[in-house]
């Protein structure tokens, strides 16, 4: 079946007086890998179930290929949903689990055998047809659930935290497999997760959801590099957020000032070319990702504009990189420095110089 595009038009759902989601407008393009990313209880699963037809919106409408489907029952939507707990039927074999949807569509018997065989091959489960779900490993169960959905060639593939029940190593493997499969099949895919790493690795577009509302929508790079507010900045990846005030602004060049009981500092920034010039006096957050921060000896020369003396309070060697926590300006900064290879690592209480480039920090609006 042809992949469809999905539109949510100011949908809302409430239980009692409590709105679980409200005023959500999203357009998921044909063939896109779209991720709903947010903490648990943010309403992302509700949105997914709305598209599958298990939740009736109290406001707004859901459109598949432009057609409103609010009135269409789940079994007529042709929208494949892979459940978080897989929901494999324990009383049916792997073959019968996968064949279920085809039988509902009255597909001829030999056609069923052919298509189930093909999809099981696709997910590398050939040979497990006769087994019961309970005889499979977690990863295999996950792939049966995927095969069961793919075999009916849905217009949209919905994935509800499909990797959350797998162990860490398997999760990364399955992530790559899923990515290949989705790109090969050109399926419109909507993926629900609270794992920002997964979201960044898989998605063409991410919608960050909090409190039942879309906070920011964009490509993984946009979301990571230009977070819309401090919530997004803190939720996606690690970041150092420091309250600051705009002191000078001219075009893309801005100077922000930080005042604290332990001292003051000024930083010069160069904003991305697309962003508007903030007005002087605006209270903002300065967002510096740990990996753009350099840590060096106090005396060492550096070409970075923004420098700040600091003291190391913790260091954690992680192989590929070293994580430091340094204290300055009455707060702590996290820094992630590439393995210095052979050079000494900084230790607790070392006096160091923290520095970053003018283009490496962004200003973000304060939420409240």
């Amino acid at each position, binding site marked *: 079946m042809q992949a469809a595009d999905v539109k949510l038009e100011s949908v809302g759902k409430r239980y009692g007086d409590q709105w679980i989601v409200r005023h959500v407008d999203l357009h998921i393009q044909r063939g896109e890998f779209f991720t709903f990313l947010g903490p648990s209880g943010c309403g992302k699963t509700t949105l997914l179930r709305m598209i599958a037809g298990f939740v009736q919106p109290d406001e707004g409408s859901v459109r598949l290929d432009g057609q409103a489907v609010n009135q269409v029952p789940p079994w007529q939507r042709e929208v494949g949903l892979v459940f978080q707990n897989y929901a494999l039927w324990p009383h049916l074999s792997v073959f019968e689990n996968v064949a*279920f949807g085809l039988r509902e569509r009255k597909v001829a018997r030999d056609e069923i055998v052919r298509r189930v065989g093909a999809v099981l091959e696709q997910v590398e489960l050939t040979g497990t047809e006769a087994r019961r779900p309970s005889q499979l490993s977690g990863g295999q169960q996950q792939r049966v659930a995927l095969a069961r959905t793919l075999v009916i060639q849905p217009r949209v593939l919905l994935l509800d935290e499909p990797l959350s029940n797998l162990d860490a190593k398997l999760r990364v493997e399955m992530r790559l497999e899923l990515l290949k499969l989705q790109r090969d099949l050109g399926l419109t895919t909507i993926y629900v997760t609270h794992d920002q790493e997964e979201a960044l690795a898989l998605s063409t577009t991410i919608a960050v959801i909090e409190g039942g509302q879309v906070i920011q929508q964009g490509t993984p790079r946009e979301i990571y590099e230009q977070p819309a507010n401090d919530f997004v900045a803190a939720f996606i990846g690690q970041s150092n957020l420091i309250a600051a005030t705009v002191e000078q602004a001219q075009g893309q060049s801005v100077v922000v000032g930080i005042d604290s009981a332990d001292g003051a500092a000024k930083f010069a920034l160069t904003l991305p070319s697309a962003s508007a010039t903030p007005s002087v006096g605006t209270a903002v957050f300065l967002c510096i990702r740990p990996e753009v921060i350099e840590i060096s000896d106090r005396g060492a020369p550096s070409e970075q504009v923004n420098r700040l003396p600091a003291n190391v309070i913790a260091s954690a060697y992680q192989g590929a990189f070293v994580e430091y926590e340094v204290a300055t300006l009455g707060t702590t900064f996290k820094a992630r420095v590439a393995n210095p290879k052979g050079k000494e690592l900084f230790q607790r209480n070392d006096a160091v110089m923290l520095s970053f480039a003018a283009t490496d920090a962004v200003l973000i609006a304060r939420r409240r």
Partner: protein
Amino acid sequence: MAIASARAAPRIAARIDWWQGSLMALLLVLLIAFILYPVLRVLSISLTDDENNLTLLHFLNFFRRPLFREALWNTLSSGFLVVLFSAILALPMAYILARYEFRGKLLLQTAATLPLVIPPFVGAVALQLILGRSGMVNLVLMDWFDFSIPFMEGLTGVVLVQTLHFFPFILLNTVVSLANVDSSLEEAAQNLGCHGIRLFRRVTLPLMLPGFIAGSLLTFIRAIDDLGTPLMLNYKNLLAPQAYLRITTIGMDDVDGYVVCVVLVMLSLAALLAARKYLSLAEYATAQRAAPVAGKLQGINLAIVWCVIAMILGVSLLPHIGIIILSFSKIWSFTLLPTTYTLSNYHEILFRVPHFVVNTLIYTLLAAALDIVLGAAIAFLLLRSRVPGRNFLDAVATMPLAIPGVVLAVGYLRVFHGWDFPGVGAPLTSSWLILVIAYTSRRLPYTVRACYAALQQVHVSLEESAQNLGANRWRTFMRITLPMIGGGLIAGGLIAFITSCVELASTIMLVPRIELGPISYGIYLYMQSPLGRGAGAALGVVAILLVSAGTYLTHRIFGGRAGSAFRI
């Protein structure tokens, strides 16, 4: 756009709920008509005087009459004694069964369920023959030592028979409770330095106590509900026989009968509510992992356990042995064993008057089937719908646990007597249907529980994924839900079948004509005359076989969790 679709949304919600709403309405009509209303009718009669005014006078009279005060006292004390003696029998067995591995464990487990397969009133007759005034034991005692022990006289006999029949309820409940104590809870205590008796007293006992207390309260309810045993032993001064005698001898208009009924319901209801409270307390201890098996029994301990097994097995098998011998005897009185043996008793009940057996099969299978359908529908509404009124439905469906058979029968006689029921062409009380309805109502709580437990195991996502792949509600039910809950439904039906087979209290009040009576009624009739006792015993053996078959099948389906079927 937003306005148009906002208007569309409630319409589909209403369409989906429409049939759930009708199902709810239908179930409520049935349950109110056949459970709630008859009981409320009994209550209202006990509370009104001749001029239809509200009055408590009848209750005052109840407590003024020494006869009734004594009946109330006897009921309370015999119920308490049954629970006490059952607990003494059951507790050590429960601990040994739950915590030790030993040779002969299976035998002990089997022995523990044997008393359940013999209806208490049949057991009463059999025990008369063995322990009664002119039974085996006393004949021997008279012969050798010239004295006798009045095992079966008066209240002693009632307590003895009921204890032997009901102790498995406490046993099963306590074993389930013990098995549900999460082993990590005990391990945590051991880790902190607590072991042995202290571990039992500080951790294990408090955790199993709610299950034990709930089992005890259930036993109390069953004991005061039991009409057959006192009638068979000819001991009339308990509440249940008083209500029965009032209504059957003095008549339907005797207010005292209704008052006795209401007092009975109050007692059961109080016990039921308390049991529910304790069971809900028990839930926090539910096992994540299997409870530990403390160890193997060997040497002197094993010998002690075997003595206990032998004793319990021996005593609990007495009624079975007695009834089997009686069923093959021609004459058995004032002798140690029958003097002549015969097969004519079986000929009588299987070929000359086979209707008792046939009726039983028809009524109980029909009631079991109805219970499965109702139980499944109620469980569905409780677990899967958002229709208002679910709590009320749940409450009314659970109510029969606290309605003694006598009371329900009195309510039916009062409500359905004297007017032609639509579709029956006669009053419901002169049709055999009234028995099916009574059995269905009485056993409904068990099947609702079984269905509820079965449906609870089926995660909603299993049904949703079927719908997501194109199966509509009906196909989803047939292909996913039904295959997954089928075992639970059948087990629930079997429990209804087993217990209906031996239901006497409501039966003897509601049987319209002799030829419409089931086995329990036949036994009751035959046992009235010394000459008929052989045939009555043969019917008793048939009842035991039916119940055994049902119990065996239940165990096959429920497996080790059979005990949980007897909880609330």
